[in-house]
């Protein structure tokens, strides 16, 4: 049996899992505060725009969003299988394409800022 190309999808999954673990909880807290009506100062248009306009800011945002998307997509693919959905190739295609689309969109928006 040939060696698997899984590493292509697994490495970004593992990286994304780490990013999610470290970054997503606090980001959720921030938007949650906004949802509750207490918009943190850092979420003002000026601050956010300034952050997203900087090169480093773009990189961080893109990294977090794309890796997290990828990680979620990959995990969802496995979960579909665990739930008894046996069309793995189909699920993989749809989910990975979705993740890539999301990442591309994020990139486009970031470049517009």
């Amino acid at each position: 049996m040939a060696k698997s190309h899984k590493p292509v999808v697994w490495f970004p999954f593992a990286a994304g899992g780490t990013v999610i673990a470290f970054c997503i909880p606090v980001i959720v807290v921030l938007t949650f505060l906004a949802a509750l009506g207490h918009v943190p100062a850092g979420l003002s248009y000026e601050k956010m725009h300034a952050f997203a306009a900087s090169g480093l800011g773009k990189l961080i945002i893109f990294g977090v969003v794309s890796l997290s998307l990828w990680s979620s997509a990959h995990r969802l693919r496995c979960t579909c299988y665990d739930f008894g959905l046996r069309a793995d190739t189909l699920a993989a295609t749809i989910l990975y394409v979705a993740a890539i689309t999301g990442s591309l969109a994020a990139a486009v928006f970031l470049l517009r800022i």
Partner: protein
Amino acid sequence: MSNSPPRSQPPLAAPHGGAAASLGRPGGSSERIVQLEVLRYNPDTDTEAHFQRYEVVCQEEWVVLDALNKVKADIDPTLNYRWSCHMAVCGSCGMMINGEPKLSCHAFLRDYEGVIRVEPLAHFPVERDLVTAPDDFMEKLKRVKPYLIPKEEKPISAGEYKQTPAQLMKFRQYSMCINCMLCYAACPEYGLTPGFIGPAALTLAHRYNQDSRDGGRAERQEVVATHEGVWECTFVGACSEVCPAHVDPASALQQMKITSSIDWIVEHLIPGGKSARDTASREDAGDIS
């Protein structure tokens, strides 16, 4: 040296509270009637499995295996199961006990209440009663080449391959597997995808990969790095939870995913990067020997 007094240190040496009564569990002899519900299947006569109830008089400190042995000797000689060592080392007595993969010689009655349900190990075909067919596991064990493929051959007369205690510790844990297959019964991915090489066999490959004397990782990767190898594992972790020998296959498999990924990158993305053998020897740079 003391001059041999007739009785030395009585308070220390005397069993407290008049010998026999205090030994073992409080209350002396502690018998208990245990209800066993055992899955029975006889291919000669049955098309389906069914549960059979046994009431067994047991000692409180017994294990489930003792109860089964009592059934076999005194109640029903037609009940079938495997066992040998009664000390959790031969790996033959694995069963599902109340749904959990367990060595029956290490499943203590005192940890159970009510009816104890005993079934053959999950995910393996049932040959008869509690006896399963481990053929698939045995075949997979062989496929991962679980033997030393020496980095450099040398004759016996040249003495041992040097290995420091630290190098030994690097793989010792993974060499403790008793092949009981509890991890296979626990791993849902093995249940869903029987082609999966599975926790114990892959861990054994890891055991040799991690051995400073070994140079066979590239060969084993041909099995390890396939779809049916480590990539079928979704890190459920059940294998490590049930392992009676504390081998931690989940850990071994995740480590192998990382090395396999590095291999892939070296092979595909780095010009001139070739095989696992390179990474293997790189990893072990700093060996003594």
